[in-house]
Every structure is written in structure tokens, then in C-alpha cells.
């Protein structure tokens, strides 16, 4: 009996699914997302998959060993303000923590928006001030009680919040990660006073230093939990009724999977559930094809998202940016700019600009024929001949070349004094240059040179534009994975069960320290890590992982006391007791990593170091098949390449046009060429060629 491994990425517009059988064949499916019932979109893709295999949906689902998915439920609930009403309890004197926002009004904004002072305002607070109550208590930096908890005051505050309509309670007291007694007692009192209200404690959910982000993240999590639970219950119910027998898994922002019961406790950790899949997929495929340093580029309709894989590991951020809020939860780092197929081109003062305004999906680019009249990048791609009007989104939408030309002529060519073709090529040149600039910025900020990376290109428009922005960057290889159109879903299918446990326990070494193990006792570090590892292991086993399959990675957040940058430094894998040599080795590695990123001589060890947070990441592999080549690369004998004119470098030229079923392993394609895969158009530039590698990926290189 066949076994299937299934992964879906439920996006805002499309639901992408990959179905992998026990032999490693990967099937790719796409369907429109059903916003009110995400499971329906998934089932629609699986109906296609079942049909292709000549089985019923129920039969297929009954043979699914693992079902994993990414979702935008938490993201949308947060951005659309549909989350539950939180009542927040804070230390007396600090109830304005969320309102003050540490004084920042620029988080999550582009430079252009920051420069517009008259509209530069803070985002609304996650919890309105009227739903926050201060309670009498205080703990200091050493975890000592400065002011005891006033229990009557807590009762008063809980009743007040309940009376004002709180549906859940979040508790975030100062230094609660150093001493959680007050928060636990508050939870008991809430249970007595208002047993109907759920409670989230910052000391349990996120025991890390920094009260603003801890409070924000705890409150957001409390507000999302009930929403996510309702939604996941219904999702699971629908799939189970349709025949799924395994418990579904969900992708977290940290790039790992979790079971529903676990993820319900950490709802806020799923806000990047979808986008990170593409980075994980690139990591997976990159390692397979020998590319351990990868820039991932996802060009969609409205944004261009960039991630990095360094030495086979995705670059992580200690926070997750969602809208204009920064949550203190580790995430796979993804940076975005407003440059996509829907970015609108305009002319002002004779200056041609592209974006950041986007036509979105509605009305969309002019060529979609849905009422859009402004010219977009997609319109330029069509006018230039890169897009085939009859083969867009697998033929689901016929593009209107006339409308695209009119839009460009009216809004760009005439005002700028250019021909329609020159205007279209100008739009493409500008957007490609901007994307190259962003990739450069992301790599340079990490202390790396983009020419040391392979570019992975995916998303709706990435494979079409990568030949240009990749070449501009000087990256030696541009790789369009065979999974490009469903890359995030594929990444979700490549992920491991992951559990992160962390706690802040600030420790410092005095200036002039040479033996760091003296100030950072190995036994103390070991004890902290053991505690975290124990918790993480317990959780993974509860999620069904085999204890022996679990691997643990221990790391610290560390900085030089005289300087500002915090880095995450990993200790050797495993869970052995640390020695003095391990601790000194950790500091040495920190110096190395610091100078690698910030330049030789930038480290300032003489001032001492400071560890703030300890973290254990526990992972357990999810069963999966070994992938092999993909179905539609089976060469069709005798198929011949066609040509079509493409406007490139100021002139119309003939480009070779190939279909997916005309590709075969090891084949070389000379540019200028266009490869039309299902749902994806790949372009190979005039001075480039591409090789179809063993996995079915297209590897584009500058011709020697």
C-alpha cells in the first residue's frame, strides 16, 4: 500500500500542496484559498492529487502518514484585529509599557515613511490602555522581592478587567523570568476570581529579558490562542472526516513543525508560518545540490522577500516582525520590500519610479483585465514578451497584451518620452536593480559578500526576474528549483518537529577577564541548559517524537559589555556537562563570529561579555521519503523548441521557448531562452545558459 507525505501552504490567494509518495516522487497542486474554510482549499488540491493517482480522496487521505501545513490564521487575526480582548496585568508604575512602546514610532516602516514626519505615528497598542491594570508588587534584577504582591489588589484588578470585557488575561510583571512566584500566584487568583478567563503568564510563555517585547508578545499570544484553537479544531475535524488518520502538523515562524496541541499554546509563534517555508525548502535543496550558502528570493505579487542560508543553516532573527509589531520570538529571518509583479510604475518630474504602491490581486495589473488601469511590472513582463498570455497561472487567466501596452503607453512611455518597449524594459530594469540592492543589503548586513552565494528564485515572478537581479549581484549561480511554484509547501514538507525553550539569566564577566569560565561557571550553565533541554524533550515526546530521535542544540545570546550587538552563539551539540574549555571556547567562537560579521578588530573582549538568554532547540525528524526527480521533467521524445520575440537590451530578439516536458537531466539551454513550467515562467538571459540538474532544478550561470 502506498504511503504519502503531504504538505500545504495556505496563502492569502492560493493554497499550494505537495504530495510526496514513498518513492520520493513529488506532485504539485494549486487551488484557490477558501478564506472561511482553509481546509476546503487543501481538500481541493488533494482531489486533484487523488485523481492523478486514480484513487479516491478518502483512499489517498487514509494513506497519508504525515500532513503538515502553513497557515495565515494567526497573521490575519492579528492584522485584521480579530483577536480576543485581552486584559493585561502589569507591575505598578509600568502599566504604560505598551503605550510608551519604548518611544519608537518607526518599527516596520520603510525609510520613505519614516521621513514623512507629519504622518509618522505609532501603531495602535496591542492592548488598549484601559484594558491594562497595574498591581502592587516589584521584583528586582536579581530576582529579589522589593515589594510583596498585594493579593487584594490583584483581585480588584482582575475583577475590573473582567467587568470591562476581558476575554483572556495576560500577566507580564517586571523581572518575572528571574522570579516567577508573583506571576504564578496571580494565575491562582485569576482562577479563583474569574475561572472562565484563560491566563497566559510571561514567565511561562516567554521568560526572556526586555519587558516591552515580553509584554507585547505575551499579550498577542493570549489574544490569538482562542482564535487559532477554534480554527485548528475545525481544520482538523474537516480533514479527519475526509479520511485523514494522522494528527496534522503546523509550521512555526522558527522554521520547525509542531503538533496542534503544542502550537495552540504558542499561537504567536505561527505568524510567519507560510513565508519561512521557502527558506527551509531552499536550505534543503541547497544542501542536496552542494550549495551551503544560499540567498532565497521570493518575488510575489506585492513583495520581494529575501532570506539567507549560511553554511547550511537558515539565518534566524531573535524577533518576528508582523505588521509594525516586533514579537520576541525567534523566526527565520525574512526581509521584504514592496517590489512585486503588481508594483505600479509612474512618472513624476520626468523621473520613472516603480512601487512601492501595488495593484495587489484586485484590481491587479492592467493585463489581468480586472479593471486595473495602472501599469505594473507584470504588464512590462508581458509587453516585453517574457510572459505567454495563454499560459499564465497554468492557463487559468488569459492576459491582455493590449491593456498592458495601453497602460504603459499612457502612464509611462508618453510622460517619460520613451517608446512603449523602452518604457517596459525601463520598468523591469528599475525593479530588478532595486531587488538586487535589497539582496546586497541583506548579505552585507550579515557581513557577507553576495558573490559567495547561490540565488534561489521562486514565487510567482522570481524565476522570471532572477536572471537579471542575480546577474546584477554577481552571484555565480541562480537556481530555479523544480518546486518553485509550490516552494513554501515543499519547505513545510522538509521540516522537522521543533521545540524551542529559552530563559533569560543575565551573567557578566568583569572587564579584563581572560578565563571566562571563572565568571560563567560551567556547572551553572549546564544546569540551566539541562532544565531547558528536559522541558523541550518532554514536549517533543508528548508530540509523538521518539526520544532517541531528538537532537538538541544549545545556544546563548551574548554581547560585549561595551558594545551593542547581540549574537546567538551555539555550543557544541549534545547535552554533555559543560567544561571550562567549552565555556572559553564559546567566548572564542563569539569573538570569531563577531569579527566575521562586523569586521576584524571590531571585537572588544577586554570590556567583558554579557550573556542574557539561554536557548535549547530540540528537533526530531518527521518521517519522509527520499526525494527524486520530478514528474514533468520526463523528456518528450521529438519535442522541438519554439521561439518567440522578446524585447531585451533595446531590441526585439528571438528567444528559445521550451515547455517543462521538453527538459531532461543534464540538458543545457542557451539563453536567451524561456522555459514555461506549469505555473512558472523561467527566463535565461542572453549571456547566460542553464543546466537541468539531477533534481530537475534549473541552474542558470553566466556563459563562460
Amino acid at each position, binding site marked *: 500500500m502506498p504511503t504519502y507525505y503531504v504538505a500545504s501552504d495556505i496563502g492569502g490567494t492560493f493554497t499550494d500542496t505537495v504530495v510526496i509518495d514513498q518513492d520520493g516522487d513529488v506532485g504539485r497542486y494549486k487551488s484557490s484559498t477558501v478564506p472561511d474554510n482553509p481546509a476546503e482549499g487543501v481538500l481541493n488540491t488533494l482531489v486533484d492529487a487523488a485523481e492523478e493517482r486514480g484513487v479516491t480522496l478518502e483512499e489517498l487521505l487514509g494513506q497519508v502518514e504525515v500532513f503538515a501545513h502553513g497557515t495565515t490564521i494567526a497573521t490575519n487575526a492579528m492584522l485584521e484585529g480579530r483577536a480576543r480582548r485581552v486584559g493585561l496585568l502589569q507591575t505598578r508604575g509600568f502599566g504604560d509599557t505598551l503605550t510608551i512602546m519604548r518611544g519608537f514610532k*518607526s518599527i516596520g516602516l520603510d525609510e520613505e515613511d519614516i521621513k514623512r514626519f507629519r504622518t509618522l505615528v505609532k501603531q495602535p497598542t496591542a492592548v488598549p490602555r484601559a484594558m491594562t491594570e497595574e498591581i502592587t508588587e516589584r521584583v528586582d534584577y536579581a530576582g529579589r522581592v522589593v515589594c510583596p504582591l498585594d493579593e487584594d489588589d490583584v483581585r480588584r484588578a482582575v475583577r475590573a478587567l473582567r467587568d470591562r470585557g476581558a476575554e483572556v488575561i495576560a500577566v507580564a510583571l517586571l523581572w518575572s523570568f528571574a522570579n516567577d512566584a508573583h506571576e504564578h500566584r496571580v494565575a491562582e487568583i485569576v482562577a479563583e476570581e474569574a475561572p472562565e478567563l484563560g491566563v497566559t503568564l510571561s514567565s511561562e510563555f516567554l521568560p526572556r529579558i526586555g519587558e516591552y517585547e515580553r509584554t507585547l508578545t505575551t499579550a498577542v499570544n493570549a489574544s490569538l490562542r482562542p482564535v487559532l484553537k477554534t480554527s485548528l479544531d475545525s481544520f482538523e475535524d474537516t480533514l479527519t472526516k475526509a479520511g485523514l488518520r494522522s494528527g496534522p502538523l503546523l509550521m512555526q515562524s522558527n522554521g520547525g513543525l509542531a503538533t496542534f496541541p503544542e502550537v495552540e499554546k504558542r499561537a504567536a509563534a505561527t505568524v510567519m508560518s507560510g513565508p519561512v517555508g521557502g527558506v527551509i525548502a531552499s536550505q534543503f535543496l541547497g544542501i542536496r545540490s552542494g550549495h551551503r550558502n544560499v540567498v532565497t528570493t521570493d518575488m510575489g505579487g506585492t513583495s520581494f522577500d529575501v532570506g539567507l542560508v549560511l553554511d547550511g543553516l537558515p539565518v534566524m532573527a531573535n524577533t518576528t516582525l508582523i505588521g509594525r509589531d516586533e514579537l520576541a520570538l525567534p523566526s527565520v529571518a525574512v526581509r521584504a520590500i514592496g517590489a512585486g509583479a503588481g508594483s505600479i510604475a509612474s512618472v513624476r*518630474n520626468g523621473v520613472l519610479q516603480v512601487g512601492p504602491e501595488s495593484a495587489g490581486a484586485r484590481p491587479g495589473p492592467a493585463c489581468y483585465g480586472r479593471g486595473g488601469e495602472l501599469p505594473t511590472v507584470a504588464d512590462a513582463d508581458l509587453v516585453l514578451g517574457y510572459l505567454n498570455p495563454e499560459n499564465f497561472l497554468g492557463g487559468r487567466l488569459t492576459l491582455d497584451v493590449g491593456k498592458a501596452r495601453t497602460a504603459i503607453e499612457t502612464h509611462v512611455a508618453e510622460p517619460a518620452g520613451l517608446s512603449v518597449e523602452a518604457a517596459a524594459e525601463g520598468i523591469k530594469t528599475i525593479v530588478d536593480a532595486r531587488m538586487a540592492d535589497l539582496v546586497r543589503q541583506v548579505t552585507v548586513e550579515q557581513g557577507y559578500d553576495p558573490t559567495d552565494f547561490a540565488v534561489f528564485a521562486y514565487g510567482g515572478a522570481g524565476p522570471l526576474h532572477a536572471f537579471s537581479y542575480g546577474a546584477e549581484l554577481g552571484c555565480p549561480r541562480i537556481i530555479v528549483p523544480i518546486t518553485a511554484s509550490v516552494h513554501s509547501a515543499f519547505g513545510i514538507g522538509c521540516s522537522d518537529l521543533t521545540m524551542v525553550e529559552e530563559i533569560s539569566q543575565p551573567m557578566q564577566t568583569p572587564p579584563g577577564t581572560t578565563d571566562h569560565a571563572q565568571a560563567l561557571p560551567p556547572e551553572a550553565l549546564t544546569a540551566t541548559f539541562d532544565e531547558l533541554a528536559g522541558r523541550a524533550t518532554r514536549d517533543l515526546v508528548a508530540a509523538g517524537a521518539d526520544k532517541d530521535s531528538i537532537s538538541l542544540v544549545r545556544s546563548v545570546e551574548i554581547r560585549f559589555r561595551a558594545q551593542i550587538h547581540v549574537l546567538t552563539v551555539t555550543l557544541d551539540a549534545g547535552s554533555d556537562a559543560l567544561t571550562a574549555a567549552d565555556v572559553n571556547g564559546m567566548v572564542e567562537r563569539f569573538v570569531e563570529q563577531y569579527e566575521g560579521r562586523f569586521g576584524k578588530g571590531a571585537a572588544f573582549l577586554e570590556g567583558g561579555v554579557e550573556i542574557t538568554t539561554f536557548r535549547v532547540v530540540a528537533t526530531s525528524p518527521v518521517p519522509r521519503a527520499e526525494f527524486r526527480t520530478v514528474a514533468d521533467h520526463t523528456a518528450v521524445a521529438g519535442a522541438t523548441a519554439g521561439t518567440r520575440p522578446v524585447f531585451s537590451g533595446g531590441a526585439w530578439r528571438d528567444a528559445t521557448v521550451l515547455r517543462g516536458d521538453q527538459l531532461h537531466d543534464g540538458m543545457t539551454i542557451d539563453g536567451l531562452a524561456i522555459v514555461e513550467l506549469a505555473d512558472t515562467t523561467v527566463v535565461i538571459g542572453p549571456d547566460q545558459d542553464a543546466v537541468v540538474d539531477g533534481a530537475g532544478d534549473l541552474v542558470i550561470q553566466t556563459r563562460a
Partner: protein
Amino acid sequence: MSTAIAAVDPVTYEVIRHKLWSINSEGATTVEHVSGSPVVHATDYNFGIYTAAGEMAIIGVYLLTPLYTGAMAVQEFLARYDDIEPGDVFIINDPYLAAMHQNDVQFCSPVFRDGEIVAWLGCMAHQVDLGGMDPGSWCTTATDVFQEGIRIPPGRIVRKGVVNQELWDTIVLNSRMHDTVANDFRAFLAGLRVAAQRFDELCDRYGTDAVRATMEKTLDNSEADLRAMLRELPDGTFEHTSYLDRPDGSGRGGHAGIELLEVPCVMRKDGDRLTFDFSGASPQSPAYGMTTRGGLLGAVATLMLCTFGGEIPWNHGIMRPVEVVAPDGLCVTAVEPMPVSGGAAGANWTATCSAGGAIAKMLSFSERYEGFAFGPSDGSWQLSQFGGIDQHGEPFASMYMDSLLWGGPAFSFRDGVDSGGAMVILGGGATDVEQQEMRHPLLYLWRRQVPDSGGAGTHRGGNGVQFALTPIDTEEVTGVLGTHGVALPNRTGLFGGLPGSCARFERVIGSGVLDRLGAGRPVGDLTELDGDHGVLPGVSPAARIAHGDVFECTVQNGGGYGDPLLRDPEKVAADVAAGAVSPDAARRLYGVVVTADGGVDAAATGSRREEIRADRRARMTAPAGGAMPDVDGDPVGRWGTALLIWGEGGRSVAGCAHCRTPLGALDGGWESLAATLTLGPDDLGGGVDVHEALEAIAYVCPHCVTALWVDTEPASGKAWRDFALT
């Protein structure tokens, strides 16, 4: 200046423009990375690309006031040296020439192509210490420049690629923090090197001419855009005055021990040109508050960028139509040997307030641009620096960035930003309380937003914070405190909006606060504490905060926009619910009565507002005026929410914009047409102090008594006019 630089096509232009921006941010990132200095991370640094003539071509978002001194520095190098060669890097920090204060060290390098300078790259960062009488080199009690940090004249720190080690060592040795300064200097060189290399690549690829043409065109475009905006605005003279208060050295308490410096701004607008004239500012003096021409130009440039730069790319084009007039030797143009180490936040901030008021008065004549107007945006930098022995037994010194959390100014269409409305730093903020407590031996009693601290108005000024600290696990700490704005509000409102609250440093000696907390008795306010209570002078160079003492800093906040009586009562009720406005202020200033369940009591609100109007009517001094002029037809213009203007037989006649009653001809100044009343503590928000030499005056319509403008003016009478159109 440019000699026939080739035109660049629109596509190449846009590509190069974005790449220049990317090069600039790569230079900045490099400086930030290599430096690692906390000051750099508080964005007190910048990186810029300048034209061959030294105009700012590309600038990012940093602490804004020092930006303009980069252009001054390049122009200084060009004027002084005719032997500039490839591989040279210039240095300067002389505040009398091109810096706001000695801490701001600037490095600039020319970019040569084919033997010709085609651009300059520059970077600046506030150095943590460059010597002088006080650690940190911010010498609040210096009486001349020689007591302050080392002054570096314009010269070469690198000559043809070789570091001038003698100069380097001289500067580094004069700092208390050798390593940090040397590291920042290395960061400068790294940033300049990276940017130079990428600039070269850009020229190789697109041609030097195309790159130069792009830079020129970005400036020309911004200039043209600004001039077009200016042409839409009325010609005339617009004036606003702000004051800098400081201890007079007598040691007397209260207002008697505080003297005022005056910083009036007379702004003339003629066609597409703007002139800011500060000639009437108080003369320089050997004490706190002096700023140099660099600080003054920085203040004006910051305002121009933040007022007009929302729609126009930021570069020197925005300064081309601007002239700043002020003779040497004033408090805003101090010359040697005046002390200027505090010049980054002295009289230049007061100049920002007066110039900001003047610009707002001009913009408000235009329906299209009145939304660009805002009142004085940044009142004073409340330097709150503490040093001593920390809880780990090590010496520490730290500037608390909490002082940055002031409320922003209100606009015609929105309230001011609460706790973080700064204009001078658009992208900055403060650190978590927990991070501060982990590193320094000071326990916060509170960091909170102060209700009613933003000026009341139809749109409310932003509220700001107050934070209180007490030593823990140390015997005592010493505070270096310095600010102005304690005896008057610098943050006046617009069109009847009230001023925001004043700055304040307070100390309680022997409060026993930790014992009290230990006994489970919370502290809601300083007044609840035992001990010796006192307000500290604005300039307190060595404030001792011992174990058991409490220090509290309250920041200066934003002014309101429009008469508070016209604020939507529902918004007032929402502010009361959120704790932003107290029920007392709602009633007293807004005339809004909020019910027990948080709703608006409409009837009580209506009668309370009538009561306030009646009170204004009873107290006001009516204008002299004779017979009211008749007006025909529709008004031809208006001034914000205050005045309608009719053209009558060649004269301009103004009337109240609220009740549309004509008030009289504008010839003698609009002020003479309004009734006035002096505002007392009951008419102002809590925390507003008005020095005895000044009065808070409300100009109200003599008919409907709506407040049209509220200002602080000399008690002896206002000698200037808000505007005179030509």
C-alpha cells in the same frame, strides 16, 4: 556649478539613484558594525554622499541636527586646501567651523575620477569622550571652550592613503576612552572605503557623467519641488519667539535665580525663497546654552527636511532656497572662546522652536499645506547622565535615553504622538527598564506617561514620560543634569492649542522608599514620600543621589492645535478612559464632563463649555478697534482655524473663522483685532510653569470668544507680529 554634465535617461537615473542610496546605507552599516558604540546605536551618527561642491546628495535617517554640518565641513576643506589628492581623508570637529559640538567628529574623503573630484563621502559620529573638564565632554558649567574637549581643525587624518599617525594619536590620547574613539575612527575609515569602492564600481558601470548627472538632478528636482511649493504660499514676514532659561549663577531659588535668553526668528518669504533671520537673538555669554552657526544651520535644515521632506527626496536641494541670517557673536552663533560643548542641544533647539512656529504660521495660509504645519516639536534635551560604582562593583557612566520619550506636536488633522514624538530622531527610542536595571544600580519606581502633559487642543499635544530612580546595591550615584524649558514651555501650541508641560528634575533626599516598598506600601507619587523634597536646577552638574534618595525626570511635551473647547467630547472621554487626560483637565480645559461609566454627559458638557466661554468673556480685554468693517462676498483666504480674510478695497480684512464675524483690517497686525486674556494655572495643563518675566496670553475672538492663538510672551508686551503679508 556643473560644467555641462550629460543628461541621464530616466531609467538609468532611477537605477543610479537607488544604487547611491544603497551605497550610502552600506557605508552607514559598515560604520555601525565596526563601531559598536552605544552612542552610534542611538543613531547619533550619519553617513552621506555629497556633490563635488559639498552639497548633500544622499542622506538617511539619523539624529538629524548634525546632518548639515557635513556639507559645511566639505565646503571648509575645499576652501582651505588646493592640494587635495586621491586617498586623502579629512577630519574636523571644530564647532565654530563645522560641527555642533566637539563630540561630533566628521571624516570626509573626496572621490576622484580621471584626476577630478566628482563627489565626497562623509561620516560623523558622536564620540563618547574627547577630554575636557567633565567625563563625556558635555561640560555644562564650562565658561570657555578651553575647558572643553579637544578641538580639531580641518586637516588630513589620512594623506594619500597613509594614516597621519601623529594627529590620530594626539586625538585618541586626549580622550578618556582611547579604545572606543580609535574604534570609531577605524569604523569611519572602513565605511568610507566600502562606499568609495562601490561608488567607483557604479561610475565604471554607468559612466561618471551619468552618476554626477543623477546627483545633480536629484538636487535640482528637490529644489524645484520646494520652490514650487513655496510659490503657492503667501509672501510676507512670519515671526515666532522662544526662550532659553538657565540658572543665572546667583544661586537664588525659583524664577529669581533663572535668566532668559531670547531667540526670535523672523522668517521672510519672497516668491520661492525663504530667509530665516535670527539677528534679534540674545548675545553670546560664557555659560550653558551656547550654540554655533553649525548648530543653528543644523536646526533650520532639520526643520526644512521634516516640514517639506515628506513629499520631496531629502537632499541639499531643500536648503538651496533657504538663507539663514545671523551675525556672529549671538547665543546661536557663538564664537571663540564661548563654551559650546552643549551646543548640540542648547539655543539651537530654541531656534528650532521659533523657526518651527514661524513656518507653521506661513503654511497655515494654505488649505493645501496647513496639514504640514506643526508647533515647536522638540523642547529640550534633558541630559540625565549618571555615574558611580555599579552593583557589580565596577565603575559606570550612562546617559538615560528615557529623556527622549517626549510627546510630539499636534497637527491640524491629528493628535501629537505620545511618548516618542521627537522630530530630531525619527527612528530612535529608549531601552527597556530591565536592560537598564541589569546594567546600572538604579531601580525604576516608574516609567510612565504623564496625563495632561501634552497641550490641550482640538487636537491634543502628545503626552510624555516621567521616570523615577532610586539607587540599589550602591551607596550613591552622581547625576550630570542639563536642560532648559523648566521655567517656561518651549512647546507652544497652534491656533488656540495650549502649550505642553515643562521640563523638570526633582529629588527627594532620605525618602526611605525601599523600606516602604518592602513593607508592601506602593508609591503613587513623589508627594507620598517622606524626606526632603526639592526641584533641581535645570543645570545641575553634580547632583548627588544617595541610597534612599529618589530622582525623577519629567520631560517637556507637545503643544495642542486649536481651541480645546472644540475637541470632540467623545475623543476627550476616550482620552480619559485611556488615562491620557484626567477628569479634572477634561472639565477644566476641554469643558467636557465624563460620567461614572466613562461616557460624555452632554448636558453638563454643554453648560460647562458655556461657563468657560462666559469666564473668558468676563476676563478678556477687548481690542481697541472702532467700527467693524463690512465685508462683501466670500473670503479670499484664511489662516489656519483662526481667521478668514476678505479683500476689501485693496486692504485685507480679517474675521473670526469660527463665527465669521469681521474683526478689522490686518494692517496693524491681527493681534490688535483679537481680545486677550492672561492665562493662569487654572487655564493651563498641570506642569506648565511660566517665568515671571513672561505671560501666557490667549488671543480670543471678541465675539464668540473662541481661542485663536495661545503664546508665551514678555509680560511687558509682545513686540512682534505673527505675520505681515506683503
